[in-house]
C-alpha cells in the first residue's frame, strides 16, 4: 500500500511468518506450486558455523534498531534475529502464554497485566523489566519523539493523551507493579487488543537503563540505537555496516533455547543479482524473495522456498461518496458509481482468475473476499469470487437502464454520457498489460473507462489524489498491507471516519457490522468470526470493493540449513532452531 512499510506493516510481515492460514495443513497451495512453511532436513547438524542471509533490496537499510522509531521494513526484517516480540501468539495472531513475557486481560477492571519471564534479559546481561516495556510507549508518545506510530488506539490508555501533549510527565495508565509486572489501565477494552498488531498493546521492550540519557529527539540518530543496540532475542549485533550488512552473534543471555549458530551475517543483495547469488549459493537463506525473481530462482535446486500468505490484498475500489465534515465519509447518491448493477457489471466483466494464473507466477491467489486467508478462520472461504460472465454483466447494465449507443458505449440511466475515470499507479509493464486487458473487457460491455491523466501515475501523485476528496477518479486499483489483528481488514478502510475510506463508502448495514466486530459480544471469538463472515458476504453483495488477489511472502532456504521455519506460532522466534548441516 505504501512506499514505506511502516512499523505496523513490518510487524505484519514478522507475523506473516506466523502463518495463520485458512488451510489447516502446513502447506499453502497456489496453482500448482506448493509452498512449505517449514524446511525439513534430516541431515546431521553442524556445531556452530556461520549462516549467510541475503535480503534482496535496491535501497540501503536505514539501520534504526528501535522499531518504534524506524521507517523501513528492511531494518525490521533484518533485526528479527534480535527483536521478534516478547509475547507468544497462536495461529490466529491471538496472544497466548509461553513467551518471554505473557499478557493477560481483566475486562472488568480494564487492565492488561504483563508478566516478564525471569530469564528474559538484554544482551548486556541486565534483566528486561516492566520499566523497559513502559519505555516503549514513552518513545512513541513523547512530544519530542520522532516516532510516527502514535495512534487513537494508544489514546485508550489512561493518561496517554496528556503525556503526548506534554501536560503530564508520566503516562498515568502505565503502572509498574514491580520489576517484572506492568499493568496497563485502559479507558475501554476491545476484543482487538488481544491480538498482535492491534495498536493497543506493544509486543516489545526497549532498554531504559541503556537509553535513558539519550534525548528523545535524538534517539533515532544515536549510536546506541544504530551501532550498538541491545536485544532480548536469540542473537545480538556485533557489527553493522550501515545500510549494507549486519553481523550477529548469539545473545548469551537469551531467555529461550541456546542459539545453535556461531554467527549470522546478513547482507542486502541488489535485486538484479539475486538469481545469480542463489545459483552460486552465496547465501544460505534469502529473506523476502520477490515474485519477480521467484520464476528464475525456483529452478535453483539448492534451495527450498517457504511461503506464507500476506495479510493484505489487491483490489479495485469505487468512489461512491465524499469526505464530509470532520473527515467523515458521506455517500453521494448522485454518483453513477452508486449504482450497484454498474459495480457488479464491472466486476463480472473482469477475468481476474485468468490474470492471476498468467501473471501471478503461481504465487498469487484469486481473491474471493475482502479478508485474506492469512487471517485463518476469519476468512470466509465459502464466498464465491466474481466469475467472469460478460453476458451477466451486459444483462445487469441493460436492466439498470444503461442503454447502448450507436458507438457501442452505454449512457447513464438519466441519459448522460457514461465515462468512468480509473486511477492507477505506475508499477511496471505487467500492470500496464493487466489494466489494458480490463479496460478492453469493460469496453466490451459498453462501459467507457479512461485513465486519469491518460497514464498510470507516479506513486506520490497517485497517493495525493487517492487521499484527496477529488472527483477526478471513479474507480481505482490499490492494494492493502495490513496488520495481523483480523478486524483491521474491515475497520481500517471501510469505517465512516477512516482516512483510508478512499471510496467514502458508508451504509448503515456496513457500520453496524463493523461495530459488531469490536463489540462486547465479540470477545467471544465465535461471534466475532461469524460477524466477520457476514461482513464479507455483505461486501460481496454490494461490490463497493472488488477483491482481486492475495499474495505470498517468500523465504528461500538452502538445503544445507536445518530448523528453518516461517511459522513462529510454534516457537519463540523463527530463528530458535536454525543450524547448518553438512
Amino acid at each position, binding site marked *: 500500500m505504501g512506499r514505506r512499510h511502516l512499523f505496523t506493516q513490518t510487524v505484519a510481515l514478522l507475523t506473516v511468518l506466523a502463518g495463520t492460514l485458512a488451510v489447516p495443513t502446513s502447506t499453502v497451495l497456489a496453482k500448482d506450486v506448493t509452498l512449505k512453511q517449514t524446511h525439513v532436513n534430516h541431515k546431521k547438524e553442524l556445531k556452530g558455523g556461520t549462516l549467510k542471509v541475503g535480503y534482496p533490496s535496491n535501497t*540501503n537499510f536505514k539501520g534504526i534498531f528501535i522499531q518504534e522509531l524506524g521507517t523501513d521494513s528492511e531494518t525490521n526484517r533484518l533485526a528479527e534475529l534480535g527483536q521478534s516480540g516478547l509475547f507468544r501468539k497462536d495461529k490466529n495472531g491471538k496472544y497466548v502464554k509461553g513467551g518471554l513475557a505473557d499478557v493477560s486481560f481483566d475486562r472488568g477492571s480494564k487492565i492488561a497485566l504483563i508478566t516478564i519471564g525471569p530469564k528474559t534479559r538484554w544482551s548486556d546481561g541486565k534483566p528486561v523489566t516492566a520499566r523497559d516495556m513502559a519505555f516503549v510507549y514513552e518513545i512513541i508518545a513523547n512530544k519530542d519523539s520522532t516516532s510516527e506510530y502514535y495512534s487513537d488506539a494508544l489514546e485508550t490508555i489512561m493518561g496517554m493523551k496528556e503525556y503526548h501533549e506534554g501536560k503530564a510527565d508520566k503516562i498515568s495508565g502505565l503502572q509498574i507493579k514491580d520489576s517484572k509486572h506492568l499493568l496497563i489501565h485502559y479507558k475501554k477494552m476491545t476484543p482487538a487488543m488481544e491480538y498482535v498488531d492491534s495498536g493497543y498493546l506493544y509486543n516489545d521492550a526497549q532498554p531504559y537503563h541503556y537509553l535513558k540519557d539519550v534525548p528523545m529527539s535524538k534517539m533515532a540518530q544515536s549510536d546506541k540505537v544504530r551501532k550498538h543496540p541491545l536485544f532480548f532475542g536469540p542473537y545480538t549485533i556485533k557489527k553493522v555496516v550501515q545500510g549494507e550488512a549486519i553481523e550477529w552473534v548469539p545473545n548469551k543471555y537469551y531467555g529461550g533455547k541456546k542459539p545453535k549458530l556461531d554467527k549470522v551475517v546478513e*547482507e*542486502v543483495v541488489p535485486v538484479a543479482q539475486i538469481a545469480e547469488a542463489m545459483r552460486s549459493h552465496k547465501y544460505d537463506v534469502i529473506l523476502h524473495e520477490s515474485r519477480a525473481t521467484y520464476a528464475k530462482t525456483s529452478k535453483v535446486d539448492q534451495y527450498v522456498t517457504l511461503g506464507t500468505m500476506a495479510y493484505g490484498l489487491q483490489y479495485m475500489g469505487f468512489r461512491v461518496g465524499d469526505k464530509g465534515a470532520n473527515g467523515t465519509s458521506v455517500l453521494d447518491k448522485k454518483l453513477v458509481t452508486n449504482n450497484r448493477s454498474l459495480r457488479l457489471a464491472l466486476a463480472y466483466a473482469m477475468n481476474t482468475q485468468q490474470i492471476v494464473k498468467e501473471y501471478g507466477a503461481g504465487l498469487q491467489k484469486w481473491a474471493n473476499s475482502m479478508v485474506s486467508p492469512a487471517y485463518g478462520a476469519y476468512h470466509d472461504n465459502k464466498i464465491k469470487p466474481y466469475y467472469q460472465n460478460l453476458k451477466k454483466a451486459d444483462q445487469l447494465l441493460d436492466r439498470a437502464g444503461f442503454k447502448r449507443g450507436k458507438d457501442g458505449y452505454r449512457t447513464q440511466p438519466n441519459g448522460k454520457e457514461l465515462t468512468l475515470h480509473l486511477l492507477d499507479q505506475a508499477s511496471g509493464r505487467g500492470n500496464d498489460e493487466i489494466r489494458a486487458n480490463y479496460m478492453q473487457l469493460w469496453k466490451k460491455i459498453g462501459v467507457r473507462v479512461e485513465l486519469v491523466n491518460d497514464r498510470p501515475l507516479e506513486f506520490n501523485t497517485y497517493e495525493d489524489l487517492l487521499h484527496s476528496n477529488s472527483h477526478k477518479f471513479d474507480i481505482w486499483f490499490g492494494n492493502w498491507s495490513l496488520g495481523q489483528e483480523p478486524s483491521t481488514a474491515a475497520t481500517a478502510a471501510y469505517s465512516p471516519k477512516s482516512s483510508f475510506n478512499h471510496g467514502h463508502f458508508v451504509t448503515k448495514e456496513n457500520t453496524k457490522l463493523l461495530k459488531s466486530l469490536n463489540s462486547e459480544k465479540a470477545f467471544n471469538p465465535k461471534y466475532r468470526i461469524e460477524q466477520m463472515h457476514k461482513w464479507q458476504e455483505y461486501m460481496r453483495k454490494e461490490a463497493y470493493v472488488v477483491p482481486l488477489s492475495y499474495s505470498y511472502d517468500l523465504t528461500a532456504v538452502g538445503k544445507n540449513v536445518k530448523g528453518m521455519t516461517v511459522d513462529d506460532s510454534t516457537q519463540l522466534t523463527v530463528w530458535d532452531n536454525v543450524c547448518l548441516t553438512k
Partner: protein
Amino acid sequence: MWKIILRRVLLMIPELVLLSIVIFLIAKLMPGDPFTGMITPQTSPAQIEALRVKAGVYDPWYLQYWHWIVRMVHGDLGMSYQFKTPVGSLILSRMGNTIWLHLLTLILSYSLAIPLGLIAGRYENSRLDKGIMIYTFVAYAIPSFVFYLLGVWLFGYKLRWFPTSGSVSVDVTGTLGYILSRLDHMILPACLMAVLSVTAVVQYLRSEVIDNKNQDYVKTARAKGVPEKTIFTHHIFRNSLLPIAAFLGYSITGLLGGSIFIEQIFNYPGMGLLFMNSILNRDYSVITALVLLYGTMTLIGSLLSDIILSLVDPRVRIE
C-alpha cells in the same frame, strides 16, 4: 589572474542564491511530501498531520525557504526524514564512498584513455587505431547497466575475483584490513566504470594528435632531427591535452556526483543512490542540499577547468 578568480567566486554568490530558490521551489512543486504513504490503517492520520506541521510542510514557501537558508548559513542542512539523521552527516558518510570510488575510476579511466588516444592518433587509420575506435564506439553505445551486470556476473560470480556488493566486508578486522576490504570492493565497479568512460577522452585526444601531427612546430622538430617518439611524448602530447584539461575541472568536481546505475547494481552506498532515493521519498532536505552541492560543484568545476587550461596553455588567460 587572482583578481579574476576572486571576481568569479564573488559572482557565484548571486548565482547560488538564485539556484537555491529554483531548487527549493521545484522540490516543493513535486507531488507528495516526505510523509506521503506513511499513513497506514494502523497509524493515526492526526499524528502524521502533527509531524507535517512540525516539519513546516504547510508553511508558505518563502517562510520555509527562509528557515532553510538561515539554518544552512549556520551549518545545519536539516534532518533527513527517511534516515532520521542530520543531512550533513548523511551526505558526508556517502561522500566518502563516492569520492573514493570515483577517484579510482578517474585514475583508471585517464590511465587507459590517454595512452589509447595517443596511440590511435599516432597510428591513424592503422588496424590498431580502428580497433581502439571500435572499442570507444562500443563503450559509448552499450547500456551501462547491461555492462555492469555482465561484469558482476563474470568477475563476481563466475571467476569470484571480487566482492559483488557493498563497500566493505562486515567481518573485517583492523585498520589495514578495513582499507584493503574497501579497496577490494571498489576495484570491480571502478574498473567497469573506467572501461566505459574513456570514449570522450580518447576521441578528443586522437583528433588533437592528428591535428598537431601536421603543425609547423612538429615539422620543425622533425627537421631538426628530434626522434619521433620524443616528438609525440614531449611536443604533441602537451598540446593535445588542451581539450582534456578543459573538462578535467568538471571531472574533479564530478567526483561527488555518484552514479545511480553502478551504486544500485553493487548496492554501493554513494551519493547517486542517496539522491535517487531522496527524490523517490520526497526527502526535501536531502534533495535540496544535494542539488545545491551539485550546483556549487558545477560552478567550481567551470572555474577549475579555466584555471587548469590556463596552466596548461600559457596563451590562455582568464579574462
